[in-house]
């Protein structure tokens, strides 16, 4: 048999796989005049890569943004549904293979994904300040925008929207929603089997657990400290104690946890539990409207403890259409696009624009917009708002939850 031939071919393939080395180069578009960038962008196609699992989100891009970009800027926007982790994995391989002409022009990301992308140099560079709408309407120095889960943004991504962690509950089953972790624990004890949260490996479950960190330590202190394992281990004993005490009264006596938010949602929909949660203050709205959640669903946040984060848009290192990407992102953070994004039938999250910089008429439109009955008042949300902590705490939570809760 011709094993030698096969072995030789294999070696060649491997050698080919490892020899790619990428070089840097190209124009620094962020230093060009904005008119030139827009001119260059006209007539091009921009490939937007983003998670595609929400009807409202997809509709906003495909039916509202894309036609306007085409009409006003002569830019064709193509949406490609892909998980951000997968998109980054692809970029990583492309970097390794030395692919300088990628297929992605804009990527939607934040948190750990941004940190990974930045650390592995998968992004184009600092371009945010070159966009007129960022310059005019977004405060890039504000804590909520300048740090993405503790990682300095440094203009490598542009804020696109912000969301806040909120609980959903059935008003028929819960009379007064708890407004602190202690009250939640007490409620769980009184109503055994009616509450649970997704595993710490789930995005939402992890965020739920991180509220316990802020319950023990001041948010400012956590953020100032950055990620410090020893320090947080010392501070967090009572957090795990509370969670362990809650466990026997959770759904299925805490023997198992939903592995994802959608599983928790299903339990809530079927009435097995009385509360669910989510990292978007407006997410209940569309679920109530389509009949998935009961009409008696309302939302609540803990007093002074509702973590919020910002999600961003960025340009990959090997985008072949940087001017197009910049022009498209600039439009996506324009007042008209942001106003529409906030509509409950579209995306429903909060704008990243500094409302004080808008015209009076525009400002009123933002303030008066009806976001739906289940969404809490802006004032309540703002009062409870706490900024997101360093991404290191996400892994810490995952790790400790496994050891302190699951393995015991």
């Amino acid at each position: 048999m011709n094993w030698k031939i096969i072995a030789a071919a294999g070696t060649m393939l491997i050698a080919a796989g490892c020899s790619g080395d990428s070089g840097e180069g190209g124009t620094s578009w962020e230093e060009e005049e904005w008119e030139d960038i827009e001119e260059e962008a006209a007539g091009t196609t921009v490939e937007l890569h983003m998670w595609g699992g929400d009807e409202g989100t997809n509709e906003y891009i495909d039916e509202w943004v894309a036609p306007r970009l085409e009409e006003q800027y002569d830019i064709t926007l193509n949406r490609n549904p892909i998980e951000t982790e997968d998109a980054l994995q692809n970029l990583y391989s492309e970097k390794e293979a030395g692919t300088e002409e990628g297929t992605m022009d804009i990527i939607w990301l934040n948190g750990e994904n941004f940190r990974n992308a930045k650390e592995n140099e998968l992004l184009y560079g600092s371009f945010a300040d070159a966009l007129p709408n960022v310059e005019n309407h977004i405060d890039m120095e504000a804590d909520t925008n300048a740090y993405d889960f503790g990682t300095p943004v440094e203009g490598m991504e542009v804020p696109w929207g912000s969301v806040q962690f909120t609980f959903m509950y059935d008003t028929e089953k819960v009379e007064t929603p708890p407004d602190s972790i202690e009250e939640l624990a007490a409620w769980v004890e009184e109503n055994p089997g009616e509450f649970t949260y997704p595993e710490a490996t789930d995005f939402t479950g992890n965020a739920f657990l991180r509220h316990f960190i802020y319950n023990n330590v001041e948010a400012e202190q956590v953020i100032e400290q950055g990620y410090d394992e020893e320090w947080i281990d010392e501070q967090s004993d009572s957090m795990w104690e509370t969670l362990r005490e809650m466990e026997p009264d959770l759904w299925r006596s805490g023997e198992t946890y939903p592995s994802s938010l959608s599983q928790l949602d299903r339990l809530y929909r079927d009435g097995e539990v009385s509360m669910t949660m989510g990292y978007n203050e407006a997410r209940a709205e569309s679920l109530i409207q389509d009949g998935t959640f009961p009409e008696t669903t309302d939302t609540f946040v803990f007093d002074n403890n509702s973590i919020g984060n910002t999600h961003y848009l960025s340009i990959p290192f090997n985008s072949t259409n940087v001017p197009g990407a910049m022009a498209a992102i600039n439009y996506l953070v324009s007042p008209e696009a942001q106003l529409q994004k906030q509509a409950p039938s579209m995306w429903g999250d909060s704008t990243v624009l500094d409302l004080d910089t808008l015209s009076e008429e525009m400002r009123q439109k933002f303030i008066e917009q009806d976001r739906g009955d289940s969404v809490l008042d802006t004032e309540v949300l703002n009062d409870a708002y706490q900024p997101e902590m360093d991404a290191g705490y996400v892994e810490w939570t995952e790790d400790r939850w496994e050891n302190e809760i699951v393995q015991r």
Partner: protein
Amino acid sequence: MIVMILPALIVTAGLSFYAVAVLWTRLGTEGSPLVILNEIASLPAFWESLSFSFGVTAVSTVLSLGIGVLASKLLFGKKGSAGAGALFWVPMAVPHFVGAYLVIWFFSQSGWAASLTQQLGWIDNRTEFPILTNDTGGIGIILSYVWKEVPFVVLMTAPVYLEMNNSVKHAVATLGGGPFRKFKDAEWPYLKAVTLETGVILFAFVFGAFEVPGLVGATRPEMIGVTIFEWYSGGSWEERPYAYAVSALIGVVFITLSALMMWYTRRLRIRIWRGE
């Protein structure tokens, strides 16, 4: 001969080994593979997960094979098609996670079976319904896989029954053997090779997959496929080498296993081909 087999060999083994080699070199850049395997071996959850996976996989595979072969025999063991053959294709056409989803839809405490038993007055409250999904014993996972894989087993073994030399069976019947004896002497020799092979494919698949246990499994114990997936897709890229290393290791074990099985069933195949 080489022309006939080489393209297939390059696409399957060639590309697979190339992929494994790429992952191996990536491990090399972030610490030696052996160090990583050592680290993994020191995790207590890993061993628990491994033995749980082994148990669930073994039960799922054996049940699927048993029910599948029985179904083949009942439906295709005699001349003429049973007509139900087409229905077996149904579970195969839907993705695995849909199978898991259907198990939840039917067997969970707020599922259809619980609704029905409550309507019939057998239970007063859904919490009285037995816990069959997201359970710590892996029942939900096994149910999903059996539903999904029995048709696959039927598909692989039905042709054997359809073409089986009926005279062999009659000869044994006249000799006066019981049904089991008849099965063992007359049918098993023909079925053995394909059944074992199907078993190895099923075992390898169930052992490493994550979609089904992710939906119907419990938080703990966890199937190894889920652990690998969490290492791979988690936010911390430092855990990815774990995923690659364990995947490669499991692959090596299964490849060895399948080579041994091929060697074992070789004579059977030759005999069937020669019509002995």
